[in-house]
């Protein structure tokens, strides 16, 4: 038997790991509280989870002030500015979703304690995803964030649709994981390494394009395309979004999608540099996702389904910069990060309004928004702002996201980028059509079932709404705010 090498203990940077450790500790405490007090602890669970998420923001702030990039395990786990921006986004989104969930879960009498434990677990996976620079870490992070989400989608146990939602999401999710894992094994076989930087240098040595490298890269990208519900890998999304509890839908449409995008960013901008394969792939997927998502959204009569398809289309917009990742890498990366941040708040806001309205009307149909302005003017104005943001109309935040997109395309230049720009423009117009339909319902239609009782906003849901509203408006009026995060993320990822 050959002599075994001496083992050196890996250095652990506790400060860098503090956000993850905080979430882990809070999750453990939640489970322990649940074990000890069982049902009696129901009341404190959302508070504990919310406080835990905010506590996680503290070390992120101190790390950001410190400013040094911290690499661990030979670069497999990286805490740089990109990771910090994304982690902060995940924690804030998680906090808003906890606020959105409180009353929904309590009124529905669903399992409460476990719901928050699973959500924290999923968020832990997302934090891990933001720092992972290695195939194995990325895969474990993806499973850690997905598996709790599969079960949360089926949380309304009594409802057929929720069961369908969970099962569909689960089956498509594991199928995508399997494809991705196969791609990862091909890439590992090709480059002999799981770390992104080594993969990049090994691929550059083999001058990138062999049948196997194409296959490996495509399989991995397709796996994540499922995750961000890009067409043609989107068919789970509408049913899952409609059937899942609405806060979970918001979680999937925002947090889960953002996590998929984070992984795609690291893969495309750091690990794979064979852009002659990646760019056409993303060109096609982005164009398809925008167009199909928007065209189907036009025909929806259920507001959650409409937001689901709108979310698919928005995902398509986010995929656009990947198609010019080679020529205009800085602008492209910046555009994606900015889009992600703004999208998170405007979409969460729209879902909050839907939650508030459906608490009263008990309906998910578009007609239930009829005459909203007459009996709940505040909500109607808020929804108008969120929809304007989603459509890209200033001064609400969305315009800056779209602006970043066009700037990246212009920077890249060339016929392909220009055609994609035209597709984006057409889709922006189509999207405006169905957002306007919701607006029309709220402002000009008669009141739904003549029920004029005002909507009582609970304090939790109200706070969620206010946070989303303030952020959406702030990003629209002071785009430098979010632009700064984009630049910081670019600097740390591309090292320029």
């Amino acid at each position, binding site marked *: 038997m050959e002599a075994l090498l001496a083992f050196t203990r890996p250095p652990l940077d506790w400060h860098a790991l503090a956000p*993850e450790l905080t979430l882990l500790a809070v999750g453990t405490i939640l489970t322990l509280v649940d074990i000890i007090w069982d049902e009696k602890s129901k009341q404190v669970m959302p508070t504990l989870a919310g406080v835990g998420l905010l506590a996680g923001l503290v070390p992120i702030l101190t790390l950001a002030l410190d400013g040094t990039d911290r690499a661990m395990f030979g670069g497999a786990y990286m805490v740089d500015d990109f990771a910090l921006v994304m982690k902060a986004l995940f924690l804030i989104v998680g906090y808003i979703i906890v606020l959105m969930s409180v009353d929904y879960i309590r009124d529905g009498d669903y399992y409460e304690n476990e719901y928050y434990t699973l959500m924290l*677990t999923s968020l832990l996976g997302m934090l891990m995803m933001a720092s992972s620079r290695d195939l194995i870490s990325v895969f474990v992070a993806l499973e*850690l964030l997905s598996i709790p989400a599969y079960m949360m989608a089926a949380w309304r146990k009594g409802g057929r649709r929720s069961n369908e939602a969970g099962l569909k999401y689960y089956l498509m999710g594991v199928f995508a994981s399997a494809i991705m894992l196969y791609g990862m094994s091909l890439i590992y076989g090709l480059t002999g390494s799981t770390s992104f930087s080594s993969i990049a240098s090994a691929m550059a040595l083999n001058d990138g394009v062999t*049948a196997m490298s194409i*296959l490996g890269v495509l399989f991995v990208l397709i796996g994540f395309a499922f995750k961000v519900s890009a067409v043609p890998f989107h068919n789970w999304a509408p049913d899952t979004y409609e059937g899942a509890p609405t806060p979970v839908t918001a979680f999937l449409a925002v947090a889960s999608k953002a996590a998929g995008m984070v992984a795609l960013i690291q893969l495309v901008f750091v690990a794979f540099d064979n852009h002659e394969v990646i760019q056409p792939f993303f060109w096609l997927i982005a164009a398809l996702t925008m167009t199909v998502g928007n065209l189907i959204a036009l025909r929806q009569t259920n507001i959650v389904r409409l937001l689901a398809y709108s979310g698919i289309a928005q995902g398509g917009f986010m995929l656009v910069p990947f198609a010019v990742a080679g020529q205009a890498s800085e602008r492209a990366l910046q555009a994606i990060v900015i889009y992600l941040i703004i999208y998170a708040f405007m979409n969460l806001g729209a879902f909050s309004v839907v939650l508030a309205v459906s608490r009263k009307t008990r309906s998910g149909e578009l007609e239930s928004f009829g005459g909203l302005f007459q009996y709940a003017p505040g909500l109607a104005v808020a929804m108008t702002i969120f929809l304007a943001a989603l459509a890209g109309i200033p001064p609400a935040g969305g315009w800056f996201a779209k602006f970043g997109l066009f700037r990246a395309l212009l920077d890249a230049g060339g016929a392909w980028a220009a055609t994609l720009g035209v597709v984006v423009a057409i889709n922006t117009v189509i999207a405006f059509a169905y957002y306007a339909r919701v607006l029309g319902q709220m402002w000009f239609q008669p009141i739904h079932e003549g029920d004029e009782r005002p909507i009582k906003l609970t304090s939790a849901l109200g706070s969620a709404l206010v946070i989303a509203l303030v952020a959406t408006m702030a990003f629209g009026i002071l785009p430098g705010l979010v632009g700064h995060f984009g630049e910081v993320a670019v600097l740390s990822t591309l090292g320029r």
Partner: protein
Amino acid sequence: MVAQNIAFGIISGIVVFSALRMVTTRNIVHSALFLVAVLAGLSGQYVLLAAEFVATTQVLVYIGAVMVLFLFGIMLTKAPIGKSMEMTGTQWPIAAGVALMLGAVILYSLIDQFGSDRLTEGGKIYRTADVGDEVFSTYIIPFEAISVLLLAALIGAIVLARKD
């Protein structure tokens, strides 16, 4: 090396045959058992490649644990044991076509990449201890994350499986 090659050939034959029977058999329990044969065969291949840890894991986790879940799943869903004609969907020719195409693409890329490589004797053998070194250094975070993942899976499964 010759003995290994022969063993590789025999095991490959068994695996391919079992895999085909797994998707064509009309009895769902037989299907599960053919899957066991496939997984066991793969475990044998890992042994031939001197990957002891992977082989053990394959037996422990897949043949042991995952198959238990499979059989439980079959028993829970009340699928009749015995032949059933609905086992093969109406779209099977499309599925077979896609599978064949995918197989061809993968096969081509594998041969294209590694077709001319020769295994040399006396290469580095990765023992369980080497795997341990990696787990306890480079991959310590994914390792700990897996325990959280398993806990979440258990809690979720219990919630979804409870009657009330």
